[in-house]
């Protein structure tokens, strides 16, 4: 491969765009404030385009092939979403325009809030957070604000299962809480007995992912909610795995008080190579006043008697006891538009169909692989499942080797070494948008790799072979710390 750096194809005097000439009298420039040098590259438009097109070709994306990255819900991103978000009437609006001039934007946001409320069972939703972890921080700060508002200052601890995403403890720390880890039981559930021991008046709440990161629906979820609520705590839902349960169960009905959504997972908006996403947060009646804002509300326009149906005016407002703003403006509007489009196209039946097929695909793939790879928790899974890459008859082969070898078959590897409670974890999430043929091809590759692991382990150790670069030296990167290519 070897695509030069953009700075390496720079040549003084080139430029990639034409700009208009000044059409007014110039003002004197403040010489004492000006910079001397601006080390940006200088390239022509054609060189720029070829550079970035060639770089794009070094990537694997959902549009190129199967991407069963567990916990990330790499489903197909419908193209109509992209077109919807690029409609000029939406794109070219400024966040500080008078609300009466952006009623279409507020309409979309209001109805997306309402859709998410209906899907989750929560009373209110705020679209402010820009990513899942951002929504998590919102949720934990809301729990804190709730306890503080009741004068309940003794609650210092957040309970977090050992299977939780790393963002849960990190968000907890940012919100000023200590974390207490709760062990899982032999069936991959939160162990209710272990939980009971920790439930006291110092507990702010429990952060639960359900289905959890093993891809299992917690069999004791109602009991867990009761235990946490019983000691005055609150139940936080990590909505990363919502793709398993749309139209199957509303998280609020399971006892969750607050939960974040990942629009870039469940609702088909693309991941963008690491964002932008969107992490709306929903809450029941108890926590709704603390939601981050602004949120969109509507009021009936009284004087419009001529209209056939009710006419509404949409407004921005802060929830009454809001934790405040989490970012400037109103959330990732462009991402919200894509999720809105998706929900409008699927409707209630389509969302349930998506979840059912996500779970069907995962269980089918599991049935094809569980005789080849160790399955630490042998249950019906939800939208994903976790195998171990520790093969008894190939002790020198590790999950990392299996992951790298999968690339040679044109597949993105699963999530590896997570959750931490499974030795050599391989976390596989196929999503509903993959066909049986794709799942079969992946299963066959995995089975072949297991055979190679026994017979030709060197093939795995030296993998990948068919990629633009071979295995990269991560230790050297951390040691050398070459973080940019500027000279001097």
């Amino acid at each position: 491969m070897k695509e030069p750096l953009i700075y390496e194809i720079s040549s003084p005097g080139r430029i990639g765009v034409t700009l208009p000439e000044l059409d007014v009298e110039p003002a004197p420039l403040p010489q004492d404030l000006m910079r001397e040098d601006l080390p940006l590259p200088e390239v022509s438009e054609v060189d720029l385009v070829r550079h970035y097109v060639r770089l794009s070709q070094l990537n694997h994306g959902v549009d190129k092939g199967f991407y069963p990255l567990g916990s990330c819900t790499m489903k197909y991103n419908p193209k109509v979403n992209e077109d919807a978000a690029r409609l000029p009437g939406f794109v070219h609006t400024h966040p500080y325009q008078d609300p009466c001039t952006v009623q279409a934007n507020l309409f979309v946001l209001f109805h997306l809030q309402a859709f998410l409320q209906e899907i989750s069972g929560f009373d209110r939703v705020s679209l402010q957070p820009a990513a899942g972890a951002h929504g998590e921080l919102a949720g934990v700060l809301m729990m804190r604000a709730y306890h503080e508002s009741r004068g309940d200052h003794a609650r210092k601890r957040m309970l977090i299962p050992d299977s939780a995403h790393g963002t849960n403890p990190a968000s907890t720390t940012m919100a000023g809480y200590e974390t207490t880890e709760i062990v899982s039981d032999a069936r991959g559930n939160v162990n209710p007995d272990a939980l009971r021991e920790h439930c006291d008046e110092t507990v702010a709440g429990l952060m639960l992912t359900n289905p959890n990161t093993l891809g299992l629906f917690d069999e004791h979820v109602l009991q867990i909610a009761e235990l946490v609520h019983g000691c005055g705590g609150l139940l936080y839902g990590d909505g990363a795995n919502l793709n398993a349960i749309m139209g199957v169960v509303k998280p609020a009905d399971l006892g969750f008080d607050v939960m974040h959504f990942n629009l870039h997972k469940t609702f088909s908006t693309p991941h963008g190579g690491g964002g932008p996403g969107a992490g709306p947060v929903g809450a029941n009646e108890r926590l709704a006043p603390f939601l981050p804002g602004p949120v969109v509300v509507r009021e009936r326009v009284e004087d419009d008697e001529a209209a056939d149906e009710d006419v509404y005016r949409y407004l921005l407002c802060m929830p009454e006891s809001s934790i405040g703003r989490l970012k400037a403006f109103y959330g990732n509007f462009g991402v919200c538009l894509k999720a809105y489009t998706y929900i409008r196209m699927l409707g209630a039946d389509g969302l349930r169909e998506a979840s059912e097929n996500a779970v069907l695909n995962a269980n089918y793939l599991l049935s094809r692989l569980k005789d080849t790879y160790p399955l630490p928790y042998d249950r019906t899974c939800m939208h994903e499942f976790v195998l171990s890459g520790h093969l008894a008859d190939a002790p020198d082969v590790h999950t990392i080797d299996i992951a790298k070898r999968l690339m040679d078959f044109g597949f993105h590897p699963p999530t590896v070494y997570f959750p931490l409670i499974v030795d050599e974890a391989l976390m596989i999430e196929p999503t509903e948008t993959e066909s049986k043929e794709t799942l079969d091809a992946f299963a066959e590759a995995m089975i072949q790799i297991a055979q190679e692991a026994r017979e030709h382990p060197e093939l795995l150790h030296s993998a990948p072979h068919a990629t633009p670069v071979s295995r990269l030296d991560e230790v050297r990167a951390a040691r050398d710390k070459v973080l940019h290519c500027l000279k001097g």
Partner: protein
Amino acid sequence: MSYVPNTDADRAAMLEAIGVRNAADLFRDVPEAVRFPELDLPAPVSELEVLRELKELSEYNVDLEHAPCFLGAGAYQHFVPSVVGHIISRSEFYTAYTPYQPEISQGTLQSIFEYQSMICALTGMDAANASHYDGATALAEAAVMAVNVGRGKRRRVVVSAAVHPEYRAVVRTYTQGAGLVICGDDGNPFDLEALVELMDADTACVIVQNPSFLGYVQEPSTLRTLAKAAHDTGALLVISADPISLGLFAPPSEYGADIACGEGQALGGGLNFGGPYLGYFACREQYVHKMAGRIVGQTVDQRGERGFVLTLSAREQHIRREKASSNICSNEALMALAAAVYLTALGKSGLRKVAELCYHKAHYAAQRLATLPGYELHGQGTFFHEFPLHCPRPVQEINDYLLNEWGIIGGYDLGRNYPELANVMLVCVTEVTTQDEIDTLVEALQDIEEAL
């Protein structure tokens, strides 16, 4: 339409392989009483219908292709070269996840490495990360980072009142559980030197915006005084800077900043009603290990070829969990790509030219507007592409008239955030504003005085 390729025959074969009768049987772990609720959502529509519906809906907006606009205040209308949209529409970029598997993510990784290089070029800093959600969260993370640099012992964050009001609000939201003292932002937004008085041995950082929220470029001597005062007490200087302004003005490194961050939307991002935007973030080398977010570093593969990986991950949540420097995971990678493409297209001379166009046009507008009776610039100093304009009547009244009678979107009402600046409008003019639009604004404001 649920984008599911499985046919009935596929489903039957799969169910048989699993050993269950129907898909509903897969959900027996879900408590029966709440299983399979009815969802009350609008009936699904086709692709044709949803696009028609959204297009019609979008036309209810007054958009900036149809109305001249003088709003800035943290979200700026700039020309976005066509190459930006085309490159970020490459689905190899936008349908990829965070580049956890570097061998098949070199496109994302190298483009972020180049983006980091360009952010270092703009700010003069030693290292940049792969992005934050927006300028406001980047600033909040800067405050948290400064507290971490002080090993959590320094609890005071001094913030200038001339920092974007919503950014200040976000700093408060982020730190509300940490028990920090945030001070300074109730002071005079035109008096930065007063912040020196607020710095003590307990101070983690002082935060300044440049150009300020009110549009003025801060005096280098004042900034150096602040930097010295901060460093003398062991605190950091954090600068939030508009990146286009850095095409013209001295970078934060030159006046002693330890962290430079800001809103990168202006770099090819479009307005999008406030998001997705781009928080850029850079710091001095000695603080790299305290920086939050993804960082890409250069290395070699087994064949000795250059390649790129996510690095220094021991700072991050997926490794350090409760001890991580931040909870950030997804960021705004695609917007960072847009910024890199934008900065590449413009290059050394183009960014300077855009900045100069903004500067000259804004000064032309200021000079014309200040000749109107009752209108004058509020405050003094060098401004970049925005300036506070004192008006003879409430800004809301003027803006309503401009919109309804002239189809013009007026500037930002500073009275919303600064009671002492009632009747002061923050007017923004960029390279996309034409002389004709500026002259029309002047004419419209004259018209108001006659009409009202």
